[in-house]
């Protein structure tokens, strides 16, 4: 039996409180009036202008004592002149400022949503991995089932939080994540109108509840059978678990695909991609397995898992390695097909990402592909816990960036930054995740007793 240490509980509560304060701060600081946004934009433009001024003006500015004040004053003057000269321009300036104002207001919502989805996706990926291990009757993994069950315990709260944020952004918020929730936008938009029989809040929320109900029902019964098998004197629970796992995998691949259209792809309702569901799946699968490996290594380092040997770690690291490559394959397939054909309606998705998110967009390929490829290729390295932990942390950060790159360009656009709202959202959900997962792990013995494959798993050796 594992008992949740006080240290870990305090740590997770500290993360939650710290994260919560940051999230509140993020929401408080994101309501800017139109005038504030205009001043901000004018200042930005001034900074920009200073750089591009011709020599004489640049000299003039450096001669002045207060360069900054001078520059912004100059910019305001020129802006004012332009506004007087052409009314059209001023109107355009207003529209632009409103657009930016909306993007700034979107930022804490999106930051919260990205982090909530990221941790939910870890639990869902772990659940898919768990079901595959049971359905495939894998002989090496039963020793890790209780850890997987612990990770998937976060799915119910996590998925409900994601759905709540999504719906709240369109009901109590001002359509801060999904633009198709805004009736004013839909009124002028033929493309969204055509999709509104699918993309409307009621049906969206209902679908979300169906996925969550399906996933969590499976999780509930699988856990129940897994625990009942410990006390049973026959294998009927094991067989039941096998059957529901196989059935769940069928439900999962449909629901996961539709979930990815709903919860992620629909932030860009003008864009579509057919392999998107698989792409999101690869991301969640590799993150889920990475977290299973990290928790296994953590518990083993505490001496809680004496029968887990380095072959188990090796197997998990192989999955991390192989699925990182699989993720890259899908990322590249999606990117190259759109880049190659360069059809304007599809390729804007990548143009905004390459122009405004260059470092995060290509940086995540380095984090999610190049780094695991080089670190985890060697068979010996996959058996060294700190190597696996290092690779795991990089993979998790890389997949956070992946979700960030999916959501942010459509909601906050150029106004992105990884600052207080983003980091505190991660802390908030990380704290919640750690608390829920380790509480669930502490509720049952760490090693399943009567699983028919447990002997094989304990003697697993590669």
């Amino acid at each position, binding site marked *: 039996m594992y008992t949740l240490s006080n240290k870990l509980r305090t740590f997770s509560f500290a993360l939650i409180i710290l994260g919560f304060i940051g999230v509140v701060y993020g929401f408080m600081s994101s309501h800017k009036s139109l005038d504030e946004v205009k001043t901000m934009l004018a200042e930005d433009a001034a900074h920009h202008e200073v750089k591009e001024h011709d020599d004489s003006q640049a000299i003039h500015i450096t001669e002045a004592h207060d360069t900054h004040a001078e520059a912004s004053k100059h910019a305001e003057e020129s802006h004012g002149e332009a506004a007087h000269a052409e009314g059209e321009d001023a109107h355009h300036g207003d529209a632009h400022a409103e657009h930016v104002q909306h993007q700034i207001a979107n930022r804490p919502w999106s930051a919260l949503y990205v982090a909530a989805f990221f941790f939910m996706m870890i639990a869902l990926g772990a659940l898919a991995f768990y079901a595959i291990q049971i359905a495939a009757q894998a002989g090496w993994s039963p020793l890790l089932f209780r850890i997987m069950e612990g990770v998937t315990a976060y799915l119910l709260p996590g998925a409900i939080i994601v759905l709540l944020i999504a719906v709240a952004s369109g009901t109590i918020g001002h359509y801060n994540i999904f633009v198709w929730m805004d009736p004013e936008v839909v009124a002028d938009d033929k493309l969204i109108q055509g999709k509104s029989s699918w993309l409307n809040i009621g049906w969206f929320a209902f679908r979300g509840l169906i996925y969550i109900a399906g996933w969590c029902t499976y999780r509930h019964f699988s856990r129940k059978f897994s625990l009942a098998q410990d006390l049973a004197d026959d294998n009927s629970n094991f067989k039941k678990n096998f059957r529901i796992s196989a059935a769940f995998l069928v439900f999962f691949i449909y629901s996961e695909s539709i979930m990815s259209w709903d919860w992620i792809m629909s932030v860009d309702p003008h864009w579509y991609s057919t392999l998107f569901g698989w792409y999101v799946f690869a991301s969640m699968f590799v993150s889920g397995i990475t977290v299973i490996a990290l928790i296994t290594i953590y518990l083993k380092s505490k001496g809680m898992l004496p029968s887990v040997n380095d072959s188990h770690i090796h197997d998990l690291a192989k999955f991390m390695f192989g699925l990182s490559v699989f993720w890259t394959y899908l990322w590249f397939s999606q990117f*190259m097909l759109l880049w*190659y054909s360069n059809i304007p309606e599809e390729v804007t998705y990548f143009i905004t990402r390459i122009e405004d998110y260059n470092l995060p967009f290509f940086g995540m390929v380095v984090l999610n592909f190049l780094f695991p490829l080089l670190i985890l*290729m060697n068979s010996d390295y996959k058996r060294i816990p700190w190597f696996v932990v290092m690779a795991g942390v990089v993979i998790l950060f890389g997949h956070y960036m992946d979700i960030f790159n999916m959501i942010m360009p459509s909601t906050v656009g150029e106004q992105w930054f990884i600052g207080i709202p983003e980091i505190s959202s991660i802390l908030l959900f990380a704290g919640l995740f750690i608390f829920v997962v380790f509480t669930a792990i502490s509720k049952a013995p760490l090693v399943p007793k009567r699983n028919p494959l447990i002997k094989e798993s304990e003697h697993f050796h590669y």
Partner: protein
Amino acid sequence: MESSKVIHAIYTDDDVLMAAVKDVRVAKYHIDEVFTPFPVHGLDKAMGLAPTRLAITAFIYGCIGITFAAAMMNFIMIEDWPQDIGGKPSFSYLENLPAFVPIMFELTVFFAAHLMVLTFYLRSRIYPFKDAENPDPRTTDDHFLMEISVGNHNEEEITEFLKNTGAVEINLVDKAH
């Protein structure tokens, strides 16, 4: 050339063979070779063979392959004759990189796989029309054979020792060099 004597101990079970290999190693006799009809898991470890470095060569060959692919396409598509083909940007290698990735990938795999196989053939001295080096044809079917050099040891002592490890047949063979 002088001839050296070897002992062929024949076994009929891989578990017995494994135990025998361990015993022989403990007794510090030198195992020249072990012939088996199929891979016996853990035999290399029991014999104390050094791990293979074939995977490392494969990694190096893969690196050569990707370099070859990149250099080839950089020369052909960017430097030698940068044509506008369907609007693809051919100003620099990086700009047209996605179009080259499938070839870079395939050539990496091609080089890694084929050169590694050739390395394996070279190191194991396998080639067409090579004379088989099989001391006993039964070892390709259901018998296991351990070859031990007699050296300075007493022949009878070794024979007795091997009998105790479960060998079903022990032959003293003169090996002409």
